[in-house]
């Protein structure tokens, strides 16, 4: 048994280098080993940072009975498969792969290790020993949409996208629907940066959008750079994944905060007790998988009340973020007035609603 904590470094030979860190907690007799594969560094203060909080919550909950390890900044692709296989072959009982692009490598490695349980975040492929989980982040986008619609003066909203996958498109659409419900004049400009994490490029995208008239910036990327740019330029922004208030206290309307702690603890417990089975979990505000960070003091009380009312309504099921009527970009009604968008359609969403400018890259 390995005692203590160590950090090692490794990398791919080629153009992209990756940081590679493994920590092993103090071990007791036969602890359950839980591994994590992260797409960014744990210090990104966004997506990966929140997953690592979940890992720490497992350690806190089970103490000596678990041993957790993680590998950070793993590129989506061939490297991911190697890293996942390494974790599977080194005695891990449960492995969380926490990015969409790890889907195929996870399924492939899982086939070779039938006794290891895998949990893949934000994907849709399940097998006997691969479960999937995600949070309904778009519910948070609805609330952000209400705030943005009420706070914008230019009626131009800038939205920084990572990759044009359904997860991100769904967020843009949920946001735009809520935005235009409170402010039919407002429009959304989308810029794709083709990265989940590149502070420089995310900041540049925010600058470009502000230069084109946007006075509220949304991001579906993981660094706090856009928020910082918003603060510097005197516009508003909504943080991603964790509470980003202190990067721009004046600019920060709110953040959509991911909370994985409860889910990770429950799944680890299920593996310990032998009750784990492959499931698809898609929890939202009512499951406690996301929450809204403190609202900016500059937001008028009635707008906060409106946003909070929407949050409560989403939690009790009386408000669906994708309630019809919904028009596509050409103004054609795609969802009737009394219908809501089914989960299946949400999961494969590849079209913009009315109010989003530009074409969705295919």
């Amino acid at each position, binding site marked *: 048994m390995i005692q203590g904590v160590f*950090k090692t470094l490794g990398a791919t030979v080629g153009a992209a280098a990756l*940081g590679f860190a493994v920590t092993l907690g103090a071990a007791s007799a036969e602890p359950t080993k839980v591994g994590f594969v992260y797409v960014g560094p744990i210090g990104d203060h966004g997506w990966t940072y929140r997953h690592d909080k979940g890992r720490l919550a497992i350690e806190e909950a089970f103490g000596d009975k678990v041993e957790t390890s993680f590998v950070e900044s793993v590129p989506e692709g061939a490297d991911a498969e190697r890293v996942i296989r390494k974790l599977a072959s080194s005695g891990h009982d449960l492995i969380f792969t926490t990015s969409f692009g790890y889907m195929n490598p996870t399924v492939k490695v899982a086939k070779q290790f039938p006794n290891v349980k895998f949990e893949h975040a934000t994907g849709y492929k399940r097998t006997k020993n691969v479960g999937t989980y995600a949070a309904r982040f778009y519910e948070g986008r609805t609330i952000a949409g209400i705030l943005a619609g009420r706070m914008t003066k230019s009626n131009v909203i800038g939205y920084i996208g990572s990759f044009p996958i359904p997860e991100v498109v769904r967020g843009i659409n949920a946001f735009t629907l809520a935005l235009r419900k409170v402010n039919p004049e407002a429009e959304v400009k989308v810029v794709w940066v083709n990265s989940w994490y590149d502070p420089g490029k995310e900041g540049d995208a925010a600058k470009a959008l502000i230069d084109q008239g946007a006075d509220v910036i949304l991001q579906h990327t993981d660094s706090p750079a856009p928020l910082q740019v918003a603060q510097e330029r005197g516009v508003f922004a909504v943080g991603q994944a964790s509470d980003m208030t202190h990067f721009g206290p004046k600019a920060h309307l709110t953040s959509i905060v991911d909370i994985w702690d409860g889910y990770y603890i429950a799944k680890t417990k299920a593996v310990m007790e032998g009750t784990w089975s492959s499931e698809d979990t898609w929890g939202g505000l009512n499951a406690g998988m996301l929450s809204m960070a403190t609202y900016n003091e500059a937001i008028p009380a009635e707008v906060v009340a409106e946003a909070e009312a929407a949050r409560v309504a989403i939690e009790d099921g009386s408000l669906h973020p994708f309630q019809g009527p919904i028009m596509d970009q050409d103004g054609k009604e795609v969802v009737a007035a009394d219908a809501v968008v089914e989960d299946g359609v949400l999961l494969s969403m590849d079209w913009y609603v009315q109010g989003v400018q530009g074409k969705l890259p295919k």
Partner: protein
Amino acid sequence: MMGMIDTLAAILVTVVTAATPLVFAATGELVNEKAGVLNLGVEGMMLVGAVSGFAAAIATGNPVIAIFVAMLAGALMAFLFGVLTLSLMANQVATGLALTMFGVGLSALIGQDYVGTPIKGLAKLSIPVLTDLPLIGPVIFGQDFLVYLSLVLVAAVAWFLKSTRAGLILRATGESHDAAHALGYSVIGIRYLAVMFGGAMSGLAGAYLSLAYTPMWAENMSAGRGWIALALVVFATWKPGRVLVGAYLFGGVTILQLHAQGAGFAVPSQALSMLPYLATIVVLVAISRDSTRIRLNAPACIGKVFHPET
């Protein structure tokens, strides 16, 4: 019309800030490649420079001290590279890659306590009247001082390499270390200095990221810019002026495509992300086909280990 000019000025200002870290890192690397040493550790040295500069800025509140600390940190990383490749004669390619990995990990370790700490960015120049001029005001008279320093650096390096005796000796070391050695020059000593200059410039590029570009520390915040800087040196065929042009070209393409997307144009942004590397490959193919150009520009001894006794 006024709105268009303001937008154009905003675009140009952003292009300059996007290009400046590339100018620093690539110019530094150019000097150590001219001395015959290939250091692939630029990304790692940038990150260590970024975090050291950031830490010093928090500790002292003085941007000038922060920048010196960043340069010193980069130079120390390069010194380590020098000890391994010049004194112990390790393979430069492998050592450079290892230096990048080491830098990524080391900077993350040093930076643990600084994640999520915001600081005020470097002040921008502000001259009454001049800075308020439309278009040229913000672009030429409204940058932070490191931008002006980067331009001075390129000019100084170009002059040093072309017109000074020391520059000639440095180039001779890169062209034929045996000849330089036979003439009585200390090949190893010259290379140490060149490598450490390269490291200091990478550190400065890193400090530009964490103090001016996005004033914060986040792990891996260079996000591959060190590799683009390496590609730029080849793209520029080892000429400082062309490094400047290349950096502004790559910076310009990145920023313009963001603006084009915001304006609703369909741009193949994935393809544009690989442009620097693609352009580098094209240049490599072109200079490989024309052997005289290689002889004129690429240092003949680049990456070769020097054994003083032979």
